[in-house]
C-alpha cells in the first residue's frame, strides 16, 4: 500500500499533462487570490463546472491547486495594497503592509512566499501520512458515530472567524435545512419542492455554492465601487536573508503545526489558522512591540499557518466527508460529482487517485513558490483590472457554470436566488461558509440520525451512550461553548490586569 501511494504521488512529477494543468491552474489561482473579493472558495466554485468533463484526478487537481495557490496569493495584495486578497491573508496585512510602507515590500513578499511554501508542503506531508491513519479509525464508525461526528463538525462553525458564533450556527442549521429540500432519502416523501420535480433529488450543490460565493460577492463588491486603492511600488521579490531565516524559522515551524491542526478540525480553515498563527508568533516573539509595525515574524506566522491549513483541511474532507473549510466544501462537491465518495474506503479502493491528488498539491506548492518569487510583481498588477470589467465577467462564468452541471435553467435561478440570499446574509453579519458546510453535511446528519434510531429501536438516548459518539458529542458541546469560555477567560484576564 505504501509503495502504491508513493508511486502515485511520484507519478504526478512525470505526467506532463498534470504538470501543465497544475502550472496553468496555479497561475489562475494566484490571479484569483490576488484579486480582492475573488478568493479560493469563489474561484473553486466558479471553476468546478468546468472540471466536469475532466477525469477525476485532473478535476480535483484543478480545485486543490486553486485552493493552495489562491490562499498564498491573498498575501500579495495584503502586503502591497493593505487589502487581503483572501480572508486568510487578513492577518498578513498587519505587518506586511507596514513593511511595504517602509520600502521593504519585496522582503515581505519573499518571506510570505517562503513561509507559505513551507506551510503548504508540511501540511501535504501530514495529509499523506495522517489521512490513511485516520481512515483506519474511521472504519470503526457506524451511524451513531457518524451522526455525532457531523454534529461536531456543525458545532465547530461556532468558532469560525467570520460572523458571531450564534449567527454561524444559525447559518449552518439553515444549510442543513436546505439539504432536506427534495425527496426524503429513506421514504421518498417530497419536502419543500412545491411541485417542482427538478428538485426531487434535492438542491444541486454547485448552483448554491456559485450563488452564495460568487454572485453574493458581486453584490458586495458593488457596495465598494468608490473604494480607491493605491498600490505600493516594488522592485522585486527578495528571498529572506540569513538574518531573516534566523528570526522566523521557529515561527514558521510553530505556525506549520498550528495551521495543520486547525485545518484538520472540521469547518475551521485558513482564516482561523492565520489569526492564531499570527497571535502565537506575537506571543512567543522576543520583540512583540514590533508587531503591527512591520515584524517579519508576523508575516511568516500568518502565512505559514494559512497555507498549512490547506492540507490539514483536506484530511476530514477526504477521510470523513466533512469539509475542513469553505473551499474544501467545494472540493468535496467536486469529489462527489466525480464519483470519489469521501470516506475510509477511498483510501483502499482508490488509493492511486487519492495519492495522485496529494502529489498534485505538493507540486502546486512548489509551483506557487516559483511563481510568487519571480512573478509576484506581475500578478500584483491584476488588481488594477477595473471592477466594472472584472465582475461582469465573473457574472457570466457564474450563471453559465451553474447551468452547465445539469443543463437546467432551474439551477441558474437557484444561483441567482442564492446570490441575493448570500448577500443579505453577509449584509446582516452572517457568514456564508456555514451555510455551504451545513448544506453538504445535511444529508449525512439526517441519514445517520435515521439509521441510528433504527439501530437502537427508536431509543435516541442510546446514541450518546456509544463511547466514540459520546466523545464527539462532548467535543461538540465544547466546540459550541468555547467562544464563550475564551471570552470569559479574556474578560477575567483583562479585569485582573486592570486591577
Amino acid at each position, binding site marked *: 500500500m505504501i509503495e502504491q501511494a508513493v508511486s502515485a504521488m511520484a507519478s504526478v512529477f512525470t505526467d506532463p499533462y498534470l504538470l501543465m494543468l497544475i502550472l496553468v491552474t496555479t497561475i489562475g489561482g494566484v490571479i484569483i487570490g490576488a484579486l480582492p473579493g475573488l478568493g479560493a472558495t469563489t474561484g473553486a466554485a466558479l471553476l468546478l463546472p468546468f472540471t466536469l468533463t475532466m477525469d477525476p484526478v485532473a478535476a480535483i487537481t484543478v480545485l486543490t491547486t486553486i485552493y493552495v495557490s489562491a490562499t498564498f496569493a491573498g498575501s500579495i495584495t495584503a502586503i502591497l495594497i493593505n487589502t487581503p486578497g483572501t480572508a486568510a491573508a487578513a492577518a498578513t496585512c498587519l505587518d506586511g503592509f507596514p513593511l511595504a510602507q517602509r520600502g521593504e515590500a519585496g522582503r515581505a513578499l519573499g518571506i510570505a512566499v517562503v513561509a507559505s511554501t513551507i506551510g503548504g508542503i508540511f501540511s501535504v506531508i501530514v495529509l499523506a501520512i495522517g489521512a490513511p491513519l485516520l481512515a483506519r479509525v474511521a472504519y470503526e464508525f457506524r451511524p451513531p458515530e457518524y451522526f455525532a461526528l457531523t454534529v461536531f463538525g456543525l458545532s465547530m462553525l461556532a468558532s469560525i472567524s467570520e460572523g458571531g458564533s450564534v449567527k454561524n450556527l*444559525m447559518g449552518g*442549521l439553515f444549510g442543513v435545512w436546505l439539504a432536506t429540500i427534495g425527496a426524503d432519502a*429513506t*421514504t421518498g416523501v417530497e419536502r419543500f419542492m412545491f411541485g417542482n420535480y427538478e428538485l426531487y433529488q434535492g438542491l444541486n450543490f454547485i448552483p448554491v455554492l456559485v450563488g452564495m460565493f460568487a*454572485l453574493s460577492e458581486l453584490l458586495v463588491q458593488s457596495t465598494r*465601487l468608490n473604494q480607491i486603492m493605491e498600490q505600493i511600488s516594488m522592485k522585486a521579490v527578495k528571498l529572506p536573508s540569513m538574518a531573516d531565516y534566523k528570526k522566523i524559522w521557529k515561527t514558521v515551524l510553530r505556525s506549520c503545526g498550528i495551521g495543520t491542526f486547525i485545518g484538520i478540525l472540521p469547518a475551521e480553515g485558513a482564516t482561523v489558522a492565520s489569526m492564531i498563527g499570527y497571535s502565537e508568533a506575537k506571543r512567543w516573539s522576543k520583540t512583540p512591540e514590533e508587531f503591527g509595525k512591520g515584524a517579519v515574524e508576523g508575516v511568516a506566522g500568518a502565512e505559514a499557518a494559512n497555507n498549512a491549513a490547506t492540507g490539514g483541511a483536506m484530511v476530514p474532507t477526504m477521510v470523513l466527508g466533512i469539509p475542513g473549510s469553505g473551499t474544501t466544501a467545494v472540493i468535496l462537491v467536486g469529489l462527489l460529482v466525480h464519483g470519489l465518495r469521501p470516506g475510509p474506503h477511498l483510501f483502499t479502493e482508490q488509493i492511486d487517485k487519492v495519492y495522485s491528488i496529494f502529489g498534485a498539491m505538493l507540486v502546486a506548492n512548489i509551483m506557487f513558490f516559483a511563481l510568487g518569487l519571480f512573478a509576484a510583481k506581475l500578478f500584483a498588477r491584476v488588481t488594477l483590472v477595473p471592477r466594472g470589467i472584472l465582475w461582469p465577467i465573473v457574472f457570466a462564468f457564474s450563471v453559465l457554470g451553474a447551468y452547465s452541471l445539469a*443543463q437546467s435553467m432551474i439551477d441558474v435561478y437557484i444561483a441567482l436566488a442564492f446570490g441575493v440570499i448570500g448577500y443579505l446574509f453577509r449584509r446582516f453579519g452572517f457568514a456564508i461558509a456555514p451555510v455551504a458546510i451545513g448544506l453538504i453535511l445535511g444529508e449525512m446528519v439526517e441519514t445517520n*440520525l435515521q439509521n441510528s434510531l433504527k439501530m437502537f429501536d427508536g431509543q435516541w438516548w442510546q446514541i450518546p451512550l456509544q463511547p466514540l459518539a459520546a466523545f464527539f458529542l462532548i467535543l461538540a458541546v465544547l466546540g459550541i461553548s468555547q467562544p464563550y469560555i475564551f471570552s470569559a477567560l479574556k474578560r477575567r484576564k483583562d479585569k485582573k490586569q486592570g486591577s
Partner: protein
Amino acid sequence: MSTSTESGRAAETPPGAEAETLTPEERGWGDYVVPAVVFVFCGVVSGISLTLEEALPIMVGDSMQPRVFPIFLMALIAVLNVALIVQILGRPLPRRLWEPRQTWVSALLLGVFYLLTEYVDIILALIAVMFTLCLVWGERRLWVAALVAVGTTVAIFFSFDLLLEVRFPRGLFTDWYYG
C-alpha cells in the same frame, strides 16, 4: 501610500465599543428585522412541514417521519434566534445606511436577467446584462463594455458548446444557432 476608502455604505462598526454611547436616534433598528424574519421563516417552514405527507410506518420503522427533522431544525434555529436577540439587546448597533445605487441596480439586473432568460434567450440576456453591469459599475467607454459583454459571452458560449458539449435552452439566438 495607503488604501483610502469612501464607501457609500455604512462602515461596518464592530458591535460593542461605542454602543453604550449611542443616542436613540443613532441606534440602528434594522438588525431587529433579522430575528423577526427568522421567526417568521421558522414558523412558515414548521407549518409546511406539518402538512407533509406521512410515510408508511413500515418504511419509517423505529426512525422518524420525514416532517420531524425539519421541525427539529427550525426549533433549534428559533432557540438560537432568542440568543441572537439577547445579543442585539446587549449591544445595540449603529444605524446602517442604505445600499448605494449600484447595488440596487445590480440586484435588479439579476431579476432582469431571470426575465430575459425566461422570455428571450440566455445568451442575449447575458450580453445585455453584462453590458449594463459594465456601465453601472463605472465603465465609461461604450465599446469596452460592448467588447466585454459580447467577447466574454461568445468565448464562454463556444467553449461550453464545443468543448464541454453543453446545450443551451432554446431562445432567439439559440434557435438560430442550433437551427
